[in-house]
């Protein structure tokens, strides 16, 4: 039974790193235009899960995957070229990683890689994606200055713009605010709430409160198992599993 609104549909999915089982028998649907948050302690498999969605997991030489993940009904391992998949499913990492070039060049980097040269298209893409990541007003007068001069929060929004420039369907966030101050964090969270109108968002976070603030649905992972998935409001008020409740209330993790 595949929900027609499902963006990602994950069936009996396992990941092993050598002998270590990092993710077991995951069955899950991620709906279009929702913010799906994933919480769990270290080693719970949440980053493994995120990296499975755009096959970054393939970079780990000892990793083996079993089961099926499909995007809009297409198997991401068999039906899609890996580069196409990664353009459709963009990821923002925990640490902002601007390239040591100008703000403008950072944003158009992916486009240039696809061979797009038309200056008008590049300019449009820069403005659109910087507006979407709410950085445009702060940097519009200094697009040609080095990206390294931006603050941490601005750098992170620049990395979002860089992904948005490629017009993805899905945005993956791997603890995007773990290195940021509370004000920058708040701005990123506001941005997420606006971005979900257009994109599907999967957010892995160590910050349980953040999941409660921005998530539509939340999944709790523990030691490679998904313990529970439900509407975020429900999970934070009446969790079904005792372990979920313990984690949310800070009894462990």
């Amino acid at each position, binding site marked *: 039974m595949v929900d027609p609104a499902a963006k990602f549909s994950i069936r009996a999915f396992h990941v092993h790193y050598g002998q270590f089982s990092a993710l077991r028998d995951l069955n899950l649907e991620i709906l279009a235009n929702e913010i799906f948050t994933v919480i769990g302690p270290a080693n719970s498999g949440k980053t493994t899960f995120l990296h499975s969605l755009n096959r970054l997991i393939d970079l780990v030489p000892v990793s083996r995957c079993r089961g099926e993940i499909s995007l809009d009904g297409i198997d991401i391992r068999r039906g899609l070229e890996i580069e196409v998949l990664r353009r459709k499913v963009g990821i923002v990492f925990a640490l902002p*990683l601007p390239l040591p070039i100008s703000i403008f060049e950072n944003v158009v980097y992916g486009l240039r890689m696809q061979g797009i040269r038309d200056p008008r298209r590049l300019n449009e893409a820069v403005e659109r994606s910087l507006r979407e990541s709410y950085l445009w007003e702060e940097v519009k007068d200094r697009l040609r200055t080095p990206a390294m001069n931006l603050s941490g929060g601005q750098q992170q929004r620049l*990395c979002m713009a860089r992904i948005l420039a490629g017009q993805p369907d899905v945005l993956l966030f791997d603890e995007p605010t773990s290195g940021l101050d509370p004000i920058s964090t708040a701005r990123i969270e506001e941005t997420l709430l606006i971005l979900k109108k257009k994109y599907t968002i999967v957010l892995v976070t160590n910050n349980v409160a953040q999941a409660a603030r921005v998530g539509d649905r939340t999944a709790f992972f523990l030691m490679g198992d998904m313990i529970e998935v439900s509407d975020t409001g429900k999970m934070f008020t009446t969790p079904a599993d005792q372990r979920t409740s313990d984690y949310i209330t800070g009894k462990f993790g």
Partner: protein
Amino acid sequence: MRVRKLKEWLIEKSILLSGIFSVVFVVLIFLFLLREGLSLFRGESVIDFIFGKSWYPISDPPRFGILPLILGSLLVTLGAAAISVPIGIAAALYIAEVAPLRLREALKAGIELLAAIPSVVIGFIGLITLGPWIKNLFNIPTGLTALTGSVTLAFMAMPTIVSIAEDAITAVPRQYREAAIAMGATKWQTTWRIVARAARPGMLAAVMLGIGRVIGETMAVMMVTGNAAIIPTSFLQPVRTLTATIAAEMGESVQGGPHYAALFAIGIVLFVITFLINGVADLYLHRSRR
């Protein structure tokens, strides 16, 4: 407590001393070269020495023009660089980015082994294998040419270039690669546009050190280039390099005489050239790091 402090002090000062020594040695070498070499310029102008077209150190009157030697060195070095730089960088990229783990270890060991071969052995191979081969290939009277020297020296520069460039490539943060790949870059786009660019200062240093090694190399180049002190017009002619001249003639020159001084003056020229190469590499390295 006091013993520990004394120990710290001793270690610190001895490290400082060894640092100072290495600099002092370089300065002393240069001063020594100057002392022995400068006496030549009492009877000879610097311009005549550097731009003089003939090197007849033992004719009467002797002529000490080292232009043919400088050009010989440059020609052989350029040829060696043209061969070793592309191959060396490509090999480094392959080893660091493409090769599977086990093959990578084998290749690295092989390249270190290449670095360990004494230059005279490489020269020997150049002399008995490469020389005749080039002679037959181009149908020329002798196989001992600038080209032979370039190919031989390329083999000697390669290990330096490969191992230092490979270190530079491996040192590129993994996150750069991940970020590029996550944006949908292919393996090649990531390697060429991100990794190679980020590693560029290190790769440049590798090239410079490789070239420095080629310019300074003596034994192999003396065996395979034919050692004719004429201004070269093609790669298929015998040439003589600065280093080979010193090595070949030092034994037969009269100590303190003008010939002897001229050889030391060549040493000064070599010193200045290598100093410039290292300086440029250093400058570039520091500028790019900022």
